[in-house]
């Protein structure tokens, strides 16, 4: 899409200097509204227990699930709470899933270091064949078995199971269902080609500098300096750039200040300071030319728990001067030109990856959409703020573009729903590793990856 328009004038710049070269005005932002208010925390108090989230989550998703269950298994099925179960009766129960995993890192095991037990090393996946699923509702819990994929599901999912209670106290599942796709939002997308660039994992501050040329090429392309005239005019159609997390690299998370004595670390700066300065310069270059939304990620200087609050403006003095810079939360939801975007920096997906047998980030992304919740593992294995009034991670509207950052590779899929929903699922790859960013065309919800490369000593392709 990008290239076809540009092709005719491809060789145009292989010529002696011509007259005044054209400048293209950037396509103006017609409709932008930030819908991520639920993710912005006001004053925070951590004095609450996390149990409230589950209660709120269940209460919030129960009506939708009951409706789905009825539509799936018939209007006359019995919806029971766990306390009302009778042995042998086929019914449907709505509850929260809990997966008892042996390998799950537990704080109790860490405390048991006193007994000289080796602490558990971090594993890529914590699943084991001996894991069990337990369904909980407000008052009771019951073990599940049957036609349910134990390995695939994760703790914190709200689902409806259809089956009957056995004599030994377990629930035999015949079928289960999730909330599924929500009713579609009205489509008011643009009629002409508009692009949004999604990139994540810039990884500034890392020791290796190979990604830096790629980053510079990316910035150049978006600001219109790179490429022949055709390409520059296409780049002028990029209405927005969304940086989905991990702007700093993992190397900046040096723990020296914690481990070393104070007198050794007195004059040393945190590695993130340099990286943030570099980030500021890059953002300044971008902001002078295109609106940018910056989402924090796992290694960025903001809070650890989800929802991550926006980076503070004082860290980016040069770029913050421009109105085109927007510092937003993670997860992030916004309406761009009538297209609803929803996405995270990838922590939720990678957490599910660790505790589920699903290997494909795109599959996990799709699954969270169908499960109706952005990050079901949130308080259990992923840090989360103790919400008690409402769970903002429950999906209330079906987005048009659903993305996650920092995936190992680029993948995208257009999901078609039964009620006419069209959702573009995009896994945005880690730029520092893959040098790839994604370009989403808002008009027809397609996505194209863009790769940047320089040449090395052994330039092969």
């Amino acid at each position, binding site marked *: 899409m990008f290239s076809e328009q540009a092709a005719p004038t491809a060789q145009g*710049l292989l010529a002696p200097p011509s007259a005044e070269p054209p400048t293209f005005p*950037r396509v103006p932002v017609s409709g932008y509204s930030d819908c991520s208010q639920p993710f912005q925390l006001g004053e925070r108090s951590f004095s609450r227990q996390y149990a409230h989230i589950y209660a709120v989550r269940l209460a919030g998703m129960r009506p939708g699930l009951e409706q789905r269950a009825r539509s799936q298994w018939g209007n006359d099925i019995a919806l029971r709470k766990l306390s009302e179960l009778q042995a042998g009766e086929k019914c449907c129960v709505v509850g929260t899933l809990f997966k008892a995993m042996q390998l799950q890192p537990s704080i109790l095991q860490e405390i048991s270091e006193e007994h000289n037990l080796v602490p558990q090393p971090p594993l890529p996946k914590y699943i084991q064949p001996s894991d069990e699923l337990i369904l909980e509702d407000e008052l009771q819990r019951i073990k599940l078995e049957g036609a349910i994929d134990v390995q695939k599901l994760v703790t914190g999912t709200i689902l409806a199971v259809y089956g009957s209670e056995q004599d030994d106290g377990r629930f035999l599942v015949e079928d289960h269902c999730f909330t599924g796709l929500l009713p579609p939002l009205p489509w008011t997308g643009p009629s002409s080609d508009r692009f949004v660039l999604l990139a994540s994992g810039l990884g500034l501050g890392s020791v290796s500098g190979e990604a830096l040329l790629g980053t510079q090429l990316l910035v150049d392309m978006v600001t219109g300096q790179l490429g022949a005239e055709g390409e520059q005019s296409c780049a002028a159609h990029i209405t927005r750039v969304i940086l989905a997390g991990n702007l700093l690299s993992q190397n900046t998370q040096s723990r020296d200040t914690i481990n070393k004595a104070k007198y050794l670390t007195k004059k040393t700066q945190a590695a993130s300071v340099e990286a943030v300065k570099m980030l500021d310069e890059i953002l*300044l270059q971008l902001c002078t030319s*295109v609106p940018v939304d910056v989402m924090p990620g796992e290694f960025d200087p903001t809070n650890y728990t989800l929802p991550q609050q926006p980076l503070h403006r004082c860290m980016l003095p040069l770029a913050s001067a421009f109105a085109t810079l927007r510092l937003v939360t993670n997860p992030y939801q916004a309406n761009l030109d009538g297209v609803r975007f929803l996405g995270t920096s990838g922590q939720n997906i990678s957490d599910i990856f660790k505790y589920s047998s699903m290997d494909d980030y795109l599959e996990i992304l799709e699954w969270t959409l169908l499960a109706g919740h952005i990050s079901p593992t949130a308080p259990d294995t992923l840090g989360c703020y103790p919400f008690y009034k409402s769970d903002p991670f429950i999906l209330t509207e079906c987005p048009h573009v659903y993305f996650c950052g920092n995936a190992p590779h680029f993948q*995208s899929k257009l999901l078609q729903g039964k009620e006419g929903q069209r959702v573009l699922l995009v896994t945005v790859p880690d730029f520092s590793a893959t040098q790839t960013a994604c370009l989403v065309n808002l008009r027809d919800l397609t996505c194209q990856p863009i790769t940047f*490369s320089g040449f090395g000593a052994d330039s092969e392709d």
Partner: protein
Amino acid sequence: VTYKWLSYTLGVHVNQAKQMLYDYVERKRRENSGAQLHVTYLLAGNLLQNGHVCHKVAVVREDKLEAMKSKLATIASVHVYSIQKALLKDSSPLYNTDYDIVKTNLQHCSKFSAIRCAAAVPRTPPDAARAPAPARSPPRHRDPDAAVNGHGPPAAKGPPQQHRGIMGMFAAKAAAKPQDTHKEAKAEAKEAPGVSAASSKPPTKNNIMNNFFGKAAMNKLKVSSVPEQPKEEKEVVKPSVAGAEPESSPNTAAEKPGKKTEPARTQQKDKKSKTKRADRSDDEEERDPENVKKKRKRIKQLQSDSSDEEDVPPSPTPEEERAPSPPPVPALKTELEPASTEGSAAGRKRKRKRVLKSKMFIDEEEGCMGKTG
């Protein structure tokens, strides 16, 4: 020489810069002048990869250009990326060149690009916020000579800084200074890279001037006033720069005329904290020089008539011309007229004068009685 570097240096549109490079290459090649030029191109196009169409943007060497072209299904753009005399092993010099030139022109990085964004206007700063002054002088273009010679930007940076620092008058002295200021500028750049280079140059200028006077009146510590004056000049509050400058220019005297009261007011707090820091950090260093200075002063004053006490010794004269503003550091202030704001300074000054007077008295007496040396 990359197209971006050329565009910033000559002040032309990026597309024109690319065309210029191409033209240059063609001409040189046609002339067969023997000098081997290595060219890198930027190639962009569509590539079928993993089942979907991927847009690829790559910087390739000339010898690999055709190979890459054949790999791409459709070519979106080709243009000259850079020219260099030596064969590049990898693309990091290109990146470094671009990085340097962009860093020195951060405020105007979209000036020569092909896309103009109407929405990218600097925010009007609220009272609490601090925004860089919108009206900065445009990036000083390097001297055309330096640019066309094709020296890398680091070399080009050296002479322009010297040029700027030398403000005509101080040519001789400044010859010794550029090293210091260069180092200072580098240190400043490192310590406050957030500040664009344009803003770091006025302080460099001031520091050079200050250094000139500072050498003559060596140990006049007006550490805090150094950041004040450049800051006041710029009307921008940059505490980071202020933090950097006291450390980098401990021996300068503040000579800037034209105080601006408003920034001075807002900087009161910063000033006080910084003088404290400066005092603490510089106290040890300056003890000895202070003593030396004291000795010097006394000798000077003794040599001059007692009536010449009011007559300020020549070295601090330039200081007097400028109105001093900031809170005093203990050693300095004999030269400060009572125009100085703090009473304690005046008190100290008076004390010193008293001491000197008595000594002189004694000496005079001794002189009367006979030479004691």
